[in-house]
């Protein structure tokens, strides 16, 4: 029974949502929109589990004097300070309807000067990794890799002034071979074809997986692998 009820829930909810697309009449028409609100609400409750897990993991490290335990103190402190600053709106207008991100409030300041630089810099690391990945991966190892390399190279060159100058001497009848033109052709024709094939494939993959889930063929996520 414990195993059956979740499978029944999945089946009913899944099939009702599919059918509801074809039924505009109330209450079916709005089910899809309502669901995302439902999900958000469940997610808040689940967050208590997540935050609890985070505190447990780091609390254990501190308690057991794990070799990096001082850093766990930083994490726990950061979490606590941010949570208190936000929930009690320290330095801002208090009360349940007060503005959370009021300029000058502790929550907003921490967001501006701690959270944002950390986030932006982590994001900026991409610039370095893009370079190292290009150096290593863009090699004409075989035919496929050569095609990938050529496409990437034309696009890259097409976006630098240097690449534009490289082929600007071409006579008019050959102007389609100029790198910027070639780059936009690659973007809008073969790239588009590949994208479409991927998208159609994804759609079919999702359809089949959704059916497996709704019909109860796929039940790994319920931990019901063993029957």
């Amino acid at each position: 029974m414990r195993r059956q009820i979740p499978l029944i829930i999945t089946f009913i909810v899944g099939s009702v949502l599919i059918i509801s697309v074809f039924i505009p009449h109330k209450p079916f028409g709005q089910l899809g929109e309502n669901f995302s609100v439902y999900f958000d609400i469940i997610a808040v409750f689940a967050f208590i589990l997540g935050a609890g897990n985070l505190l447990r993991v780091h609390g254990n490290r501190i308690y057991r004097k794990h070799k990096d335990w001082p850093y766990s103190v930083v994490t726990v402190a950061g979490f606590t300070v941010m949570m208190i600053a936000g929930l009690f709106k320290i330095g801002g207008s208090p009360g349940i309807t007060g503005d959370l991100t009021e300029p000058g409030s502790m929550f907003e300041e921490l967001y501006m000067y701690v959270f944002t630089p950390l986030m932006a810099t982590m994001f900026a690391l991409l610039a370095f990794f893009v370079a190292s990945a290009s150096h290593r991966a863009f090699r004409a190892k075989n035919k496929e890799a050569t095609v990938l390399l050529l496409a990437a190279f034309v696009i890259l060159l097409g976006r630098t002034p240097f690449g534009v100058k490289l082929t600007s001497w071409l006579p008019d009848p050959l102007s389609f071979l100029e790198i910027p033109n070639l780059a936009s052709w690659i973007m809008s024709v073969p790239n588009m074809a590949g994208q479409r094939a991927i998208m159609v494939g994804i759609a079919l993959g999702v359809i089949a997986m959704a059916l497996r889930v709704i019909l109860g063929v796929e039940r790994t996520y319920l931990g019901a692998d063993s029957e």
Partner: protein
Amino acid sequence: MKTFSYSFIFYCLLGLILLATTDGLAQVESSDSLLSPLLPPSEVIAEDHPGDAGGAIIVRWKLSPDEDKGITGYEILRSASPTAEFSSVGFAATGANRYVDANTEDSLTYYYKVVAIDADRNASESEISPPVRSSPQWFNFHLLNLLIIGGLICGAVIYFIAHAKKGKKFFLRKIAGLEAVDEAIGRATEMGRPILFIPGILDMDDVQTIAGITILGRVAKTIAQYETKLNVPTSRSIVMSTAMETVKEAYISAGRADAYSDDFVHYVTDEQFGYVAAVDGIMVREKPATCFYIGAFFAESLIMAETGNSIGAIQIAGTAMPAQLPFFVAACDYTLIGEELFAASAYLSGEPKQLGSLKGQDVGKIIAMLAIVIGALLETFFAISGSSFFGSLAELVHKLFSIVAS
């Protein structure tokens, strides 16, 4: 008597004023129509918008014969009674012969008029439409094509699942990334290093995360048979709960409940880059021998895959995010591309029922390819011959795949 005479005079005056104004108006109108004889749109019909939840009416009309003489558009007027005042509900461009009034009450009856207007603001009103009411429907016929094609594909999937249950075997091509899973897990065991599994950064409300978790279940079952540590950091709480449950069951079903620990799966933070910072830290400190990145990824894909590469891990990725696929292809050893991600858990399960669904999926591909090729040929014949036969066939194929925004 006094009152009578006063009110008599008052009404007389009012009548005179009204007469004067209407007369004047009539004059203005007639002089206008003399200057620019703008003909009104005709045959105004209003009907309930089909296939919706009510609250909308479609108004159609025959274009004014003066369409080319500088008409700038049509104003749509509405009233609850043919004799009451009409008020404007919207405006349609030149050449448009329909308008959807999406602001109606299902309990009321409406009448419509359509007014042709030109650049000099001359206006010419149509006749009043017959009465109409909006109402909700129980079936959206605009989506009939969706139902037919969707039904075909679903039918194929279900048919092959049922077929496979009876023991029919299908050929399935190999997917390199999945062939490598066992080898990758074995390698981690030999090296005595952990295995890292990243189920993407989106929550359970993305279908890629669900695919990631099902694959985690299969992978964990194999890992359970070895003495290898599994590390699953998650960036969402619900994903954490589901992953815990999944891994636990995988260990139980592999008969290794003793080896399971709640520490395998842990929550980090919902913040995309905070999560990446933590994963990068785990990678350089614990040096996992194998990294799985399976689920929905954004910009962080390359940061993780490059860090994983620098520690010499075998990396298997899978995502349906078209923008991130190139980075995984470039930086990982194996990549499950789009559809392969969703097929992976069926492949790994090895269960006939699951494999049958893949065969059904292929029927969808045949439908897609046939539709594209036949449609394109019909279009080509039409373009070359101009024959209306091919034209209407091509349009039919187009219609079959068109989605009407309701």
